[in-house]
């Protein structure tokens, strides 16, 4: 093979393997100048959004490793985090201590939610993704029941600013002024005009280290084995069901903390809506970063968050320039989020069918030379 063909080969392999991020880069390169935003503005936006969203997207990695696909159930963790924030706000505890207290009290709830989700998903093997999606909707209903009817009535809320005028149920929007940006500004740093949330990035870095280290432990290794072939793992003595549940519990806890970090940056809790798009946007970002349903790694997270949110920020203005309406840009970015998930799942399903056919041939009855 000549050097030229080898080069072409490598290029085409790299290209095809990373079709999605490349498509995205092309899209963004096209749309960004249209939007009219300055580079400075965009860089600041990306730094902020990286700090705000990376933790959530990182929480998706472990279930993919365990072969359970895209965990739309992270919304259960998000809701747990929100309940933690409601209580902390109720008790009037502000600042970083309030934030960590919210994480602490939300943790047992997140563990319970994760355990529940894990059990449900174990009973729906082969359909984990759609089950986690619908489970997310179901628990959302329960969450609304609790927050809209039970809080204030059966669960006493003493901070009347939180409660609806009718006397019970939490308000639609809660100003988190005590907690606002408390983590982000904990260690202030300004590079030129760009303000960098150092403490948040430190937390994200710690999580990345944890995930890297976790991959080297027996539990992480077992998870990978389970993710590739449950039957073989079971035969070798690995407790498959337990391992899967642990993966989901960890994912849910991380999503819980991720949502708290997200909300402290935004500064407002939309009690009934903040968590609506959590799963969709996190999953879309991860996929845009080059991950697939069966394989995801830490670089996918950061590349994905930057690409996804660049598109997100740029779309409305680009839409206005191109089509005369910012709404079109907004609809476009939602379409891209759902479309990329649809595309990834189709590719994954199609590949899996092909792989199964190929495996069938290579294991048994090889044709004689």
């Amino acid at each position, binding site marked *: 093979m000549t050097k030229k063909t080898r080069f072409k080969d490598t290029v085409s392999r790299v290209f095809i393997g990373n079709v999605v991020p490349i498509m995205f880069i092309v899209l963004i390169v096209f749309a960004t100048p249209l939007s009219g935003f300055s580079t400075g503005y965009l860089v600041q936006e990306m730094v902020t959004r990286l700090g705000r969203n990376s933790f959530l997207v990182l929480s998706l990695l472990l279930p993919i490793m365990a072969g359970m696909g895209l965990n739309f159930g992270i919304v259960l963790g998000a809701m747990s985090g929100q309940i933690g924030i409601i209580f902390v706000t109720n008790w009037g505890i502000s600042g970083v201590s309030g934030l960590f207290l919210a994480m602490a009290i939300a943790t047992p709830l997140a563990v319970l939610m994760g355990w529940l989700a894990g059990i449900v998903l174990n009973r729906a093997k082969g359909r984990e993704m759609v089950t986690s999606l619908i489970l997310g909707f179901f628990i959302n209903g329960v969450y609304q029941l609790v927050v809209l009817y039970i809080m204030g009535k059966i669960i006493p809320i003493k901070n009347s600013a939180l409660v609806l005028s009718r006397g019970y149920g939490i308000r639609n929007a809660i100003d988190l002024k005590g907690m606002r940006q408390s983590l982000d500004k904990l260690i202030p740093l300004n590079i030129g005009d760009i303000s960098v949330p150092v403490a948040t990035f430190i937390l994200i870095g710690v999580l990345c280290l944890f995930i890297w*280290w976790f991959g*080297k*432990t*027996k*539990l992480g*290794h*077992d998870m*990978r*084995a389970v993710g*590739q*072939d449950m*039957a*073989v*793992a079971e*035969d*070798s*003595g*690995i407790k498959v069901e337990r391992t899967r549940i642990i993966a989901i519990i960890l994912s849910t806890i991380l999503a819980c903390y991720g949502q708290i970090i997200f909300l402290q940056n935004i500064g407002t809790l939309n009690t009934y809506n903040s968590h609506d798009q959590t799963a969709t946007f996190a999953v879309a970002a991860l996929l845009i970063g080059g991950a697939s349903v069966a394989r995801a790694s830490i670089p996918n997270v950061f590349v994905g968050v930057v690409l996804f949110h660049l598109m997100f920020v740029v779309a409305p203005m680009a839409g206005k320039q191109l089509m005369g309406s910012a709404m079109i840009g907004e609809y476009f970015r939602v379409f891209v989020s759902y479309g990329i998930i649809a595309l990834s799942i189709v590719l994954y399903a199609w590949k899996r069918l092909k792989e199964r056919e190929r*495996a*069938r*041939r*290579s*294991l*048994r*009855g*090889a*044709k*004689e*030379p």
Partner: protein
Amino acid sequence: MTEQQPLLHMQGITKEYFGNRVLTDVSLDVNRGEVLGLVGENGAGKSTLMNILFGMSVIGQTGGYAGTVSIDGKDVNFQNPFDALKAGIGMVHQEFSLIPGFTATENILLNGEVLQDNLVTKVFGPRLKTLDLAEMRAIAEKSIELLGVEISPDTLVSEMPVGHKQFTELAREIHRPEMKLLVLDEPTAVLTESEAQVLLTSLRRLAASGIAIIFITHRLQEILDICDRIVILRDGQVVKEVATGDTDIGQVAELMVGRSVAAKSAATSGYDKNTETIVSVDHLWVDMPGETVRDVTLEVHKGEIFGIGGLAGQGKLGIPNGIMGLYPAGGAVTLHGKPIHLNDPAGALAAGMAFVSEDRRGVGLLLEEALDWNIAFTAMQAQNKFLRPLLGGLIQWRDDKAIQNVALEYIKALDIKCTGTDQRAEELSGGNQQKICLAKAFAVQPDVLFVSEPTRGIDVGAKSLVLEALRTYNRKNGTTIVMVSSELEELRSICDRIAIVDEGRIAGILPPSATAKEFGLLMVGKLKNEESKVESHE
């Protein structure tokens, strides 16, 4: 070999499955460093015996077993495969149990990794210990070295050729220091000629290092090459135990297969030696996992009952499955002289062939539907029977009454025990389900009927009924029947000619009156210095 007590001693093993005796008073010994060949047809009891040795749950769930198993003189009763592993027994199955995305090292040490403590383990438990990859690699390397093959411990299993995968599996079993006895079940089935040689050499090395080996295969040449002793099982009993040097292939083949049962005599057959060919098969190949057909050429004569036999996995089941389009196939098949389009089930049915599959529950039946649907369906779809054309043929309306009537007809003709034509197929017994499958094929009124394993999983009483139904159908309607079966006796009792398939090819065709030895020899694989095909007898 040595004077010590045997490593493994199985004594008086008897096992029944729901009243069916599959093992009767089987005893065998294996000594350290010895290679024991275990030979038998399928159904002889080899798998059951190994399942007992391994403590597979299916044994306990079906009433356990009688007899004793002892390792190094101590009685053992394994409740699950992990107990057997701990006692030093390993098994390499036919289906690989490997994780494709892991390296050889990771697979060899799967769930047996070398671990190191760290800070977190004290708090969160032992599963958070970190993997000692360097140590693991060293162990894997040693294991591979012991086998005498060249495999890099860092290769991904998914990128290995089939032979290397087999060796990785083997390496996994032997890396355990406590490994004493290794059981291999048809290990060369998926290997090329040269890979098989390397494997056999490795096994000899292992034996030389003190590991005992039980080697299950039907390729008698391999048995002669590396086994020290041979145990032959037939119908659940040990028919002979002999040192390799004291026997030859012919004797082993005969013992494996032979029975003293009367074969079908020419007088009882209605087949009048008419040699008009109805189906001709030319260089057929079929890609059916586990039953690959490589190159089959044969001719079926009109009105005969043609049998196809052979050991499991050799390809006999692939022949009808390929002709009827259920699995990818190639080659040339003609019916009544006209070529049949392969890979086309509808075409095969339309041409006048029908098939009763060996996979009754998987392919043969709609378990959740009524039995009248099951009987009528194929005829309805392939030949537009049981339909009423409406609006000038634009709409084909299902005629439920006609379906019910045909079901009643066959219930009577085949004596099917059921509560009514609307009973769901899954509620019937195995024998009655098989009759439904036969009725389904009869309803198509084919010129040629392929039947695979017609009496598999059916109790003795129903067996003869099913065979009788086939015989009657053949006599009354002159339908040509091609019957594939692993039970040689069954074939000898109703077939006019019997072909034996080995390694995906026809090894030979014999009359039912041929001796057990002749059949056995055809089944047990090519001999190194003989012709590849035995002369076919007419």
